[in-house]
């Protein structure tokens, strides 16, 4: 029984190592997606905040989603990562901050 567990653990560890890049990236998808698409929903398409919150909702919850109406900046946090997007102009719309 112990041996089976050990093999499973080793396999799991190997998988995590093999996928380390993809897993590290995965952490940042939720907050980047939410910040960018919420910014565009609000400041490009011009929809209201409750609609846009529902629009970006995913299976995994965000820990924070905030907008600054004056600077038209959006900050989203989830899975321990924070990302920000900002509205850049009437033709340029929104973009993620580096």
């Amino acid at each position, binding site marked *: 029984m112990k041996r089976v567990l050990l093999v499973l653990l080793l396999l799991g560890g190997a998988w995590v190592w093999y*996928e380390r890049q*993809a*897993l590290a*990236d*995965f952490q*940042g*998808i939720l907050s*980047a*997606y939410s910040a*960018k698409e919420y910014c*565009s929903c609000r400041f*490009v*398409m*011009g*929809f*209201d905040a409750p*609609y846009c919150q*529902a*629009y970006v909702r995913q299976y995994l919850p965000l820990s924070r989603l905030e907008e600054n109406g004056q600077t038209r900046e959006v900050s989203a946090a989830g899975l321990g990562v924070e990302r920000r997007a900002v509205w*850049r102009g*009437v*033709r*340029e*719309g*929104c*973009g*993620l901050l*580096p």
Partner: protein
Amino acid sequence: MKKVLSGVLLGLFMNMTCAFAEEVWPLPDWSPAADINSPAWDHVQAYAFAPRDEHNREGVRTDALLVIKSGRIVYEHYAAPTTAQTPHLTWSISKSVLATVLGVANSDGRFNLKDPVARFYPPMQAHPQVRIEDLLHWASGLDWQEDYEYAPLHSSVVAMLYTRGRADMAAYTAARPAANAPGQRFLYSSGDSNLLAAALRTMVGPERYPQYPWEALFTPLGITSAVWERDVSGTLVGSSYLYMSARDLARVGLLMLRDGRWQSQQLLPKEWVLFNRSLFSKAVSQPGEANPGGQWWLNRPLPGGEQPWPDAPQDTFAALGHWGQALYVLPEEQLVVVRYADDRDGHFEHNELLKRVLAAQAGGRP
């Protein structure tokens, strides 16, 4: 003799003015047909605007549906909060509009389809055999995984838009390894479209580039609502992030319906539109999926395959985007259809919508 000649010329002139007078253009705005939104459209409305499930987000969830027949609005409806003024996200319809912008650059002699991409975008020197034509066919041969929700761990498009690629989407794509020889295999890739967006910068020059889609296409067509987002490096996100109102997108449809001509101006070479509407012969038929042309989607069947949308005419072509965005052009019927949506599952069917649209507009035909 002179009299005869002037008579013939006068006759020709009268004919020409008649031909132009018959054509209706959205100048300055679209005009409605006499029987706009008649009861003939009830079955279209019932399908497109079924009661919405906001909690589970299931089923067909149309935000906007606009049908233009011979240059006039025959049907138009919006679901709140989308309105006739909303610059709605078009997702991958952006790709076909980018191709249309490239068509204007092509008519100005700024590139040829057979040119290597590396001539306009140096990072592609890693893949010197890839030509502009291959990118337009989504056949760069570069390795790519185009999945959004179902494979986020290995999705190239998600990595390009939101993580490793977001600062410079074209550079991210050019750094992908080759999986196939260029021009040999269709592999739908948003990366290929963003390489085109990056190549456009060199074609038209870095100063003109930021305003080029407006100068070349939007302003001549009277499009005022367009927004086109860029990545951190300033490259247009040609794959995904164009926004405009349904009425403005229909202008692109009308331009394509009329073979690249806007009123008396041939904005796109006719050969360019022909290229957009020609099948990429090396593509393989996928049941129910439209077939790839030159950065547009075709209803024409591939050899040995079925017609993707059996109830629509074979010459139907379209620009299609994530979550149900669509711009359909039906030349035989003189129809342009814009659909904006927020479909979060696979319930919506292009064929079903087009079938109902065709039935509705046939009802009003003399």
